[in-house]
């Protein structure tokens, strides 16, 4: 059996496999990050951190449906000061750790990036695309080319770490926003955040289920959208793309990499396939590659393009 190589180099960050724990899923404590790495994640992303602590929306915040999940957690997080304490000694985690940083204005992003600068994060991810939290992301107009350029440029001045800009699948000007991020100095595009917002109503209670009423859609329903976004972005920007959205099997992972992703994020799939989902995906990718005589995963990136 020839040796299968799943390792990738993402913006000079070596990953032993291209699977990354997506932000907002189990990234609340260093103990959980460590557990995800022990269960096969190639890198992990912490739950998004803002300047001040936030309690987020009331429950229900996460529910599932036939085609995936709907969530409106509302960016609950302990704030940058507590986060800097929690995410210390990141070298013990066993894989690169990505800091997800949010803000209501560009100064906030800078403040959080600076507040986390003493910790050993490998990259900064900036989601400008949350569909369900007032003051942030889409609800604050951060998903326009101009706002994305301004925020990315401000963060660029504040850190030498690679910057990933996470985009919404629910905006028509996706590629121009990505180009704005690239022009402002972003090192990669994370595509995509949850889509929507969507809503689910309990017909017996005659009320929306989520306390915030609307939330972002993830899981299977998002996958074809995510594949298309990555495919389009691959033709629009030169920087690497991290594909996120409904990836739960090795075949899905290969699909999004063929669309143009250099690595991929996994979130909802932990619910569907368990905490060892990264191991399962890596095994499935290796099996698929073995059968076709492909030894290096990097060979498949973007091959779906003409």
């Amino acid at each position, binding site marked *: 059996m020839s040796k299968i190589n799943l390792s990738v180099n993402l913006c000079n960050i070596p990953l032993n496999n291209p699977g990354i724990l997506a932000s*907002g*899923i*189990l*990234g*609340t*404590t260093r*103990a*959980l990050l*460590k*557990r995800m790495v022990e269960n096969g994640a190639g890198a992990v992303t912490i*739950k998004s951190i803002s300047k001040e*602590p*936030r*309690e*987020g929306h*009331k*429950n*229900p*915040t*996460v*529910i*599932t*449906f*036939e085609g995936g999940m709907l969530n409106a*957690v509302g960016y*609950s*997080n*302990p*704030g940058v000061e*507590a986060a800097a304490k*929690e995410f210390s000694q990141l070298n013990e985690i066993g894989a690169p750790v990505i800091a997800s940083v949010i803000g209501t204005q560009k100064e906030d992003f800078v403040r959080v990036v600076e507040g986390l600068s003493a910790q050993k994060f490998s990259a900064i991810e900036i989601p400008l695309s949350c569909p369900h939290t007032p003051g942030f992301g889409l609800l604050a107009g951060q998903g326009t080319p101009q706002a994305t350029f301004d925020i990315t440029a401000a963060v660029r001045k504040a850190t030498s770490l690679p910057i990933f800009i996470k985009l919404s699948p629910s905006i028509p000007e996706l590629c121009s926003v990505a180009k704005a991020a690239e022009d402002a100095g972003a090192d990669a595009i994370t595509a995509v955040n949850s889509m929507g917002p969507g809503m*689910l109503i*309990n017909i*017996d*209670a005659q*009320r929306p*289920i989520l*306390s915030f009423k609307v939330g972002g859609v993830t899981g299977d329903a998002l996958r074809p959208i995510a594949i298309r976004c990555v495919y389009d972005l691959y033709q629009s920007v030169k920087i690497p793309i991290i594909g996120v959205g409904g990836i739960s099997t090795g075949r899905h992972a290969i699909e999004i990499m063929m669309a143009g992703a250099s690595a991929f994020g996994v*979130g*909802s799939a*932990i*619910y569907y396939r368990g*905490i060892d989902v990264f191991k399962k995906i890596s095994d499935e990718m290796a099996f698929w590659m073995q059968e076709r005589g492909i030894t290096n995963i990097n060979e498949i990136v973007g091959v779906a393009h003409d």
Partner: protein
Amino acid sequence: MIEQPIMVKICDIREESPDVKTFFFSKGNLRFEPGQFVMVWLPLLDEKPFAVSYLQNDVAGISVLRRGIFTQSLHDMKISGTFGIRGPYGRGFDLQPGACAVGGGIGMASLATLADRLPDITILQGARTASGIIYQNRFRGMKVCTDDGSLGLRGTVIDLLPEQLKSRTFQKVYACGPEKMLYRVVELCNRYGVGCEASLERYMKCGFGLCGQCDCSGQRVCLDGPVFTSAELSVMEDFGKMEITKAGERVIHK
């Protein structure tokens, strides 16, 4: 399985104490194991986890301590009112005969269906004061203690447990209550060489192991727990020491 609340109708309400009411509802085809919990939803208000405290034929019940706005709203509900439930969630207790159950305050609710299934069980319940003791008619032989001595022995279950552990060999000790109490119950069980299972409480969001809100040293209390064995707890550094706030900050346990 789809994680969405289904609406159930309250078919009976029982006052267990001045501050605790049990709400009974038809459980349909849901199967519950002792120690599991449900997320209870009041539309547009909030959703919180509660142990299933009664399982009788087609009916299940949750015992609710009045503590804040959400539980007050539940206490205000009348028979034939409705609330949403989803679940059951979590890993429950591993049932063994010849056991002892140790409950502190409303923690007794998590142990109640276990005690129903194990007729020879020894039950110890502690509360601050007499009005905090629940299920006195349900478990006739229950040994009771209160901090102020207003009912049963004056003291806590930690004062009551050693003599029980000395007097006979239990196959297992089950515990639920304030985490400081659980910590000491586990310590005592380790000292007497008895296996222990403790049910932990954490602020929860999703209930199915995805959001990370209820982490305890890398264990998801909602899915990997809420019941943990003493061996598991021995490597969970946060047990008895740290909890996570609603905002997600790991702080020293009150």
